[in-house]
């Protein structure tokens, strides 16, 4: 798909989403970026700010299979992956696919399930397949998980294991709407759900083509060096106990490409890296000190500050002399 067509499509998607989610352009663009980078998205915020609404709207703009899993403490792994059931007629075990078998899976309040259930997502998210009773079943392509969760401090939550957090490409938060947006929302919702008006903009084949286009965006050596320099800095930083993984660097660059494409560019800028550093790295890093906002805390206060400082201090490779 040519870049201008890609651009036109994304504008349509964004406009469609904004009929539902008003005044959250940044969050919406970030969500779309992750989607087009074929990454899994984690939306973290307090209840009631529209996490699920964003996930559902986003999924609805795509004409592809969408499932939704409500995570609860008693949810079992099989409820996600599916089960083998004995078929009386065929006298055989038959695999009944779970809700994970879809192009877009919305995992609502993912941290309300037990770690055991959460980990059932692990294999599927990374490898794009499910193994039940020794048999592996491939998931659809594209396969994207959009999960929402409440901040860790909320009651009845299990923190996501580090390994699983690393599998999400980015974590975003919604934040409260401003007064005007909130007022508009009240009027809009008075009669009907705006979600009903959302129509799919792209089909599954187009989505796949858009993902391919996003991947084809050019990233110069300088930008790659810049991304690596930031990742390295997180590993050296004394404020951090755990730095960014190589997977994180990879996903940072992939997200940056999608962001560039979304911006109508055919090449990645350091600005893309800068903008994505906190969403992509934020949920993976662990602060050296436990106090003052945990590693998965709301907004990741301390961690975000550390990342901002690292980004600000890492020289942007512009000079012909290369990075200093």
């Amino acid at each position, binding site marked *: 798909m040519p870049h201008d067509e890609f651009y036109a499509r994304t504008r349509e998607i964004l406009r469609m989403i904004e009929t539902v989610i008003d005044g959250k352009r940044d969050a919406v663009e970030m969500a779309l970026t992750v989607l087009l980078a074929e990454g899994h998205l984690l939306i973290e915020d307090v209840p009631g700010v529209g996490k699920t609404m964003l996930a559902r709207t986003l999924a609805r703009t795509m004409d592809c299979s969408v499932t939704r899993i409500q995570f609860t403490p008693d949810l079992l792994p099989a409820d996600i992956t599916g089960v083998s059931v004995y078929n009386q007629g065929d006298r055989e075990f038959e695999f009944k696919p779970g809700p994970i078998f879809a192009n877009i899976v919305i995992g609502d309040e993912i941290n309300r399930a037990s770690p055991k259930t959460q980990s059932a997502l692990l294999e599927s998210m990374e490898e794009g397949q499910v193994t039940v009773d020794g048999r592996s079943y491939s998931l659809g392509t594209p396969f994207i998980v959009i999960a929402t969760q409440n901040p860790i401090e909320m009651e009845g939550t299990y923190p996501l294991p580090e390994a699983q957090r690393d599998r999400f490409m980015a974590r975003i938060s919604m934040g409260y709407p401003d007064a005007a947006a909130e007022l508009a929302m009240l009027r809009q919702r008075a009669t009907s759900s705006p979600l009903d008006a959302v129509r799919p903009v792209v089909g599954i084949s187009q989505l796949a083509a858009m993902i391919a286009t996003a991947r084809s965006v050019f990233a110069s050596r300088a930008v790659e060096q810049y991304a690596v320099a930031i990742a390295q800095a997180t590993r050296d930083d004394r404020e951090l106990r755990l730095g960014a993984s190589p997977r994180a660097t990879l996903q940072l660059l992939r997200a940056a490409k999608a962001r560039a494409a979304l911006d109508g560019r055919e090449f990645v800028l350091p600005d893309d890296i800068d903008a994505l550093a906190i969403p992509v790295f934020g949920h993976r890093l662990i602060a050296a000190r436990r106090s003052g906002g945990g590693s998965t805390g709301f907004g990741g206060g301390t961690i975000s500050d550390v990342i901002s*400082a690292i980004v600000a201090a890492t020289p942007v490779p512009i000079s012909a002399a290369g990075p200093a």
Partner: protein
Amino acid sequence: MSPTSVAVRPKVTPKLDVASNWLLSALMLVGLGAAAAGLSSIISDAVWWFVIMTVALLVFAAGATVRSFARRRIWPSVATAVTAFGVITLMFAPSESLLALIPTPGTFERFGELQALGAASISRQAIPANADEGILFLLCVGVALIAVAMDTLAFTLRVPATAGVPMLVLLLVPSFVRSELDNGFSFVLTAAAWIAILLVGSRRPGRRMAAGIAVAAVTAGLVLPLALPPLESSQAGGESPAGFSTGINPIITLGDDLRRGTPSLALRYTSNEAEGQYLRLTALTDFSGRSWGDGDPEISPENSVDAIGAAPGLGPDVPVIAVTTDISVSNILSRWLPAPYAPTSVTGLVGVWAWDPDALTIRTELSSARGQQYTVESQRIAPSIDQLMAAGTTVESGFERYVQVPEDLPAVVGSTALEVTAAATSNYEKAVALQDYFRGGEFTYSEDAPVDNGYDGSGASVLDAFLAAKAGYCVHFSSAMASMARTLGMPARIAVGFTPGQGTLQDDGTTEYTVTTFNLHAWPELYFANIGWVRFEPTPGRGTVPEFAPLAVDDPATPGVDESVPAVVPTNAATAAPDLPAEKTPVDPDLQAAGFGSSTGAVPWWIVAVAALAAVLLVPAVARSVQRTRRLARVAAGSAETAWDELRDTADDLGLKTDRGLTPRQLRDDLRQHLSPSGVDALDRLRAAVESEAFAEHAGAPDAADVRTVIRSLRRSAGVWSAMLATFVPRSLASRWRPELVRA
């Protein structure tokens, strides 16, 4: 490399890398030591060097130690200052201070005394000076201040490149006192240390450039002094008068002046006498030590020059001729006033002047002869030969010190004197015999032979070499004759001053004499009872022989002058010394005719100094301008990155925030508020060009005109003062050399 931690914890200065801290401190110590070693050309022996290096070592060590644990940058500077003060207190005023360290009012009084002592000592001593307590105190204070300044510049202000400036100041001190660059080695060593400081201190791409500039600067520094001598000699009253002003033994610099390539105007005078006057500056009366000195006379400030005391020993029967001389001193810096012997009063002087009752020299403590216009009333003592013959051979009481000679005076001096004067009976005949001996043809006038053969100066030790080689200049002839006279029991001293100079007939019939530094001269004065001090002239080819001391033979060195008759036309070195080296002999006749007018060559030293200072201050501006021009050429050739570097540096110069962590878009957003609309457009085009060049597959083409537009727009919005500051003190140059001493 990780400037990371700086940004993460901006409030707290991170600790320095240990190696860089100590290495830089050590290099600065080496550089300072090398620069200080250059002082050895003006200060004798080497003990003082170890003393001041101890002070410097302690100061640097204190800075480095505190720096290794202090979190704030200010503390190491405080530590160096406190250490410097403490060390100096401990060394120089322990008994005036509590526990030898804590200053009391007495400490500062003591410091004041030492400072005065040092200043006095400098003004009295000859080069090389002896580092007595006062001079040592001044040296220690100076070095301590320089060390504190270097440490503060390199670490607290983080511009190690500028640490070279205090070192340079120290390096230049000797050249203020002496003109020749004889401390080249120390120069090179200091420069090497500075380059090392730059290399260690700089971890940026600018390092190579810094090294290049350093090399260029050092080369210029070495070449420049070689190019300086003509400049200096064009300064009227250059070196020798400067020497006089600091009280340095005039004999030392006299030879240097005579050997200099071109003369400079010393003074002009007219008098009511037909012939020119010998003008005395000072008299060397003391020959008890290794060489002739002025005996450090105590001159009472009450000896006002309105009425100068009678000439010592002048008897009532001796005829005297009243002489009035109007003197206009040009550019010489001298604490002694040129005046004919024997002065009776001086009028028209500025400043406080006093006369020495013995030598009748006129001296000031605070002002200078420079630019003075004054009238001297004097008596020319004209004894008859009979009176001189009658003076006898006894030494009057009170004149014993004028016959004193050092114990190690070579025996040949006395034996030659006896030999030469064997036929003479009276002191007068002996004196004339001695004068004839020197002027008789056996001796030749040479300013270079003594230097070439290592017997220059007025010391006792050089006399035998001079008497053997029979070549020298006024210093040797006068000191030899005076010494020989003393061995014969005749009171003698050496007068230092000027020969009469070149006379020019004025329209009003008077003769104006022009005296240059080539007229600097030394001659013996011998004392005769009831007559006083009488001038003799043993130097062949120089000056005039007094009429009362005619020569027995014609002086072959001055074939055009009949020495038996007092010379009416005074001679100067250029005309009367045909054996002068060829390159000096032809004094430009135009120059002489013009009387060394102020427009010809006599550039005041301060203009030269201001010009030099201005040139030095312009160096950063020129360097930045050259850099900008070269960059714009590269931009025109298609390098957008260069355009961006230039923009960033321009903003840096203007004091705008140009963090290297900013992306082109972020920098554009920061600069937008400082730009005119056209500037914003130009900046945005450049932004697009640099983005596509650095990050896209196909590079865009930058426009050098856009760079100029943005620069203009930025400078305009910054205001006149900031723009000027940016031109003359371009911060971007310094920041390129700023070290990244920080480690995570």
